[in-house]
């Protein structure tokens, strides 16, 4: 078990607030699985009122990855400028030390108005690099080792400036380097004022602005990127394709072994850019039933969670949405998806909440994926309530946890997860991973007021087993690759996270809860180029490092 100790070396001071009750009295609520670790970083309680500029309420993302190669995941915190300011924003790297403490290793160079982040080794030096999706010009920072970063040399290839929201690194063309998809939100006009229904100034609805086409960049193998959006088919003539992207994920969603991109769009049909294997993509979201909900209605999609929620070996998509819409589950049943939200029980929840970052993770390692979502309005709450009537209270909402009942249906357990659900805040980013390397998944979330919260997973193990898989090529984690674990007659599959959640990047190690299965027969990996290998002799309750080429071809 790790500890989030006070190891700040800057002026910042961490205050560790462990809110878990050690011994709940009889009749009390069950102990939460997620233990809250609040990182106080400056004056969040006095965060200035918003000014109506949309970027100030849409970020920030957050990331979790081992940045300094010590085997311990670190955190990248995107920090928001104070409301009304549109520039001069910094990102901060928090390096974890062997004792489980975090120190602010570096304040990264000014990157513009950072909203989203993705992480991957773009230049093959085995060190994960950082790409910032910005309101304004995007930015790539190369990892120079020891958790230090420097801007990528040479002219930036990024088109724009646009409002970039989320991004995903993955090797879509199977040439052993990481390419990059950047989702853009909209053509924002900061001078546009919008009103809430009661006449008060609020944040503009996305309908007020035009969408912006997303961009795809191919890595030349040396860490240089070329804009191939046109030749890849992303820049289609249909104006309707100028969607308003907020979340993106890379995975094989069509079952042909090639990596595709799924884009969550705000009040527009979502897109499933199917990879034809020849460098071109076609949006097949409509055809494959993943564009609009079961009522035929595009939703205000924000975050994407990917995983097999019902154990049918097909990847499912779970999308978070605006208030008035529930989280939507697109159940995978290749070659198509289907909105199966009602049968998952998700349709009765969260109508009143606006979801952003999200994750499908097996909290208690019982072999099924639970769902975590962070919330916060973008439309001003009309009435003040018991939580107060201050500016941000009008937008603040509780986060939620849903427990998988084993059949792909969910039950909300937010009441149990008080530390997670009790704060009413405006939360956007969510990243997950095994932060303390203890064999379960921890979570970090980021708020619009720059509060950063860590949640340590303390779920009772109850004899459940696990395996953590790091599937990698010579160039680091095989982002987007499909991993299937076979154990005691059951199979679990997942995708090495690339993109997903909202504006955030996750630990690339994939953690499977195996329940009572106490031995792993084998692990199969479908790599980015569609080739498949099996790995035998994998130990349970441990990390398996699966290197491409070292398994047996399937």
């Amino acid at each position, binding site marked *: 078990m790790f500890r989030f100790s006070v190891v700040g070396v800057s002026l910042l001071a961490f205050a560790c607030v462990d809110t878990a009750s050690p011994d709940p009295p009889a009749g009390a609520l069950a102990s939460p699985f997620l233990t809250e670790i609040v990182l106080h970083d400056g004056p969040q309680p006095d965060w200035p009122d918003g000014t109506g500029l949309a970027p100030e309420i849409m970020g920030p993302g957050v990331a979790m990855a081992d940045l300094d190669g010590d085997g311990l995941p670190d955190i990248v915190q995107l920090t928001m400028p104070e409301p009304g300011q549109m520039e001069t924003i910094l990102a901060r790297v928090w390096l974890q030390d062997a004792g489980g403490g975090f120190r602010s290793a570096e304040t990264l160079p000014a990157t513009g108005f950072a909203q989203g982040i993705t992480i991957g080794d773009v230049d093959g030096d085995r060190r994960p690099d950082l790409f910032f999706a910005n309101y304004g010009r995007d930015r790539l920072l190369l990892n120079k080792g020891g958790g230090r970063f420097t801007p990528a040399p040479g002219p930036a290839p990024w*088109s*724009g*400036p646009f409002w970039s929201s989320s991004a995903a690194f993955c090797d879509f063309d199977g040439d052993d380097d990481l390419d990059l998809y950047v989702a853009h939100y909209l*053509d924002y*006009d*900061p*001078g*546009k*004022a*919008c*009103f*809430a*229904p*009661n*006449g*008060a*100034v609020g944040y503009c609805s996305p309908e007020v602005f035009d969408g912006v*086409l997303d961009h795809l960049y191919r890595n030349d193998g040396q860490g240089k990127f070329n804009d191939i*959006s*046109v030749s890849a088919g992303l*820049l289609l*003539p*249909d*104006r*309707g*394709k100028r969607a308003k992207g907020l979340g993106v994920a890379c995975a094989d969603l069509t079952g042909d072994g090639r990596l595709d991109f799924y884009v969550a769009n705000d009040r527009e*049909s979502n897109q499933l850019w199917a990879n034809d294997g020849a460098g071109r993509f076609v*949006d*097949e979201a*409509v*055809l*494959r*039933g993943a*564009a*609009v909900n*079961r*009522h*035929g*209605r595009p939703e205000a999609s924000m975050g994407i969670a990917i995983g097999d929620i019902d154990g049918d070996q097909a990847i499912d998509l779970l999308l978070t949405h605006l*208030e*008035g819409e*529930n989280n939507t589950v697109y159940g995978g049943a290749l*070659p*198509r998806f*289907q909105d*199966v*939200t*009602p*049968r998952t*029980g998700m*349709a*009765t929840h969260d*109508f*009143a909440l606006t979801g952003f970052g999200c994750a499908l993770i097996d909290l208690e390692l019982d072999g099924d994926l639970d769902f975590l979502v962070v919330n916060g309005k973008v439309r001003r709450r*009309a*009435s*003040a309530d018991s939580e107060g*009537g201050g500016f941000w209270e009008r937008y603040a909402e509780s986060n939620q946890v849903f427990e998988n009942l084993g059949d792909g249906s969910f039950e909300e357990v937010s009441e149990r997860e008080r530390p997670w659900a009790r704060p009413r805040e405006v939360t956007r980013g969510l990243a997950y991973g095994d932060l303390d390397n203890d064999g379960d998944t921890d979570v970090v979330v980021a708020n619009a007021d720059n509060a950063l919260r860590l949640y340590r997973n303390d779920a009772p193990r109850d004899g459940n087993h696990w395996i953590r898989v790091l599937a990698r090529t010579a160039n680091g984690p095989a982002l987007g690759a499909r991993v299937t674990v076979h154990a005691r007659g059951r199979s679990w599959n997942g995708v090495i996270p690339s993109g997903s959640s909202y504006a955030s990047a996750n630990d690339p190690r994939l953690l499977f809860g195996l329940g009572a299965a106490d031995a792993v027969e084998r692990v199969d990996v479908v790599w980015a180029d569609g080739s498949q290998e099996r790995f035998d002799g994998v130990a349970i309750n441990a990390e398996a490092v699966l290197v491409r080429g070292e398994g047996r071809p399937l």
Partner: protein
Amino acid sequence: MTGARAAILLASCLAVGCTDPAPDIPLPDLAGAEPEIVTAVDQTRDAVRAEPENSDRWGALADRYMAHGWRREAAACYVEAERLDAGRFDWPYLLGHALSLRDLEKAQAAFERAVSIDGAYLPARIYLAQTLVRLDRVDEARAQFEQALAQDPNNVDALFGVSQLDLDTGRHDEARARLERAYRIDPEPGELHHALAQVYLIVGENELARRFAASAATAPPRRTMNDPRRERALPQAGSLQRMLSGRDFEQQGRFAEALVQYELALGNNPDKAASHLNVARVKARLGDREDAIDHYRDALRINPTDFNALVQLADLLERSGDAPAAIELYRRALAEQPGNARVLYRLGTALAASGRIAEGLATLEHAVETDPSSAKAHLNLGIVLAQQDRLDEAEEHLRDALRLDPGEAEAHYNLGFLLANRGDLRDAERHLAEAVRLAPNDPANRQALGAIRNRLRSSP
């Protein structure tokens, strides 16, 4: 109190958690609300206070609250209206809508009460069925959809709803039949195109699937249910309502009526740039150029960096022949949004039009580099290049514009003109005909097409 009325009162109170059969008049938090809205709320509350036993007064107050986003208070008022007039359909029906965002089970109960009062009103039954679907009470939902179809076999919403349940349960042929029937009745709604694409894919009709997937992208938004009993007359109040109303009129080309609404919004918010901007834009459309310019300038006085005001005023000035002033405003807009391709191509065009060709071309090339997906940027660059007799480059950009937006009539016209000058009359005719098809009211298109056809007829 009758037994039925007591039961409804109990159900209503359960819906919103009330305990007092005669609650105080709910009052939302009016902080930040516009004076016109506060006045409207006060007046409607006064009406309730004057006749507290009148369900219409409570319903009107609920409507007022719903219009301004105070759903919780609206629900409480609908509950009171229902308590006072238990047999009236409107109150549980509207209560269902008020609750539908935050409590599906209570919304379902309210819709069910509405249906029990007036089962012939199909929108209520459809909403009840849709709510039951969300609650995963599939059999009950199917029964409601089927009942709706028994009452109206051509009800597209019911056909669509039950087809989705068919898809859920693998009854693909039934789903297909219902969707095809719905499509025959109303081929427009986007949701039908989406669903047909999926069902055709499932049954192996891949070509049809792809066709409907393509048409789904351009189909009109989701079908709006004809639901007159939800559209209750409510005196408008507040900038938002007036702006929305103005926008609706504007989109319908009813500019004079739009102007009335925008001017009322301006009265509410004379210090907001957006209020002046709306008035200015519509006045410009109505030909009142001087007043439009005044309002644009007012908007810029309030917010000197208002991007839309800068660009729209620049557009107006450019059309009026004042290119230098337009160029200055475009440059100010670019200072706010550096690299905005739409402004870049406008600036480039204005520069070229005022004789500053090299600057104009450089700016247009910058626009194309900044946003290679902008058909307009390619179009305008192509036009200026053509004017400079750089026809090969011009043709390339005009074709790029058409590749990006085949519906760009101007690009067809200009490419047609260019091809005609090169003597490629057949291709020129094709593009000019397309320009006429896309913009039939543009006399230049028709004249050019006529001229080309004359030349073709006189050609050997």
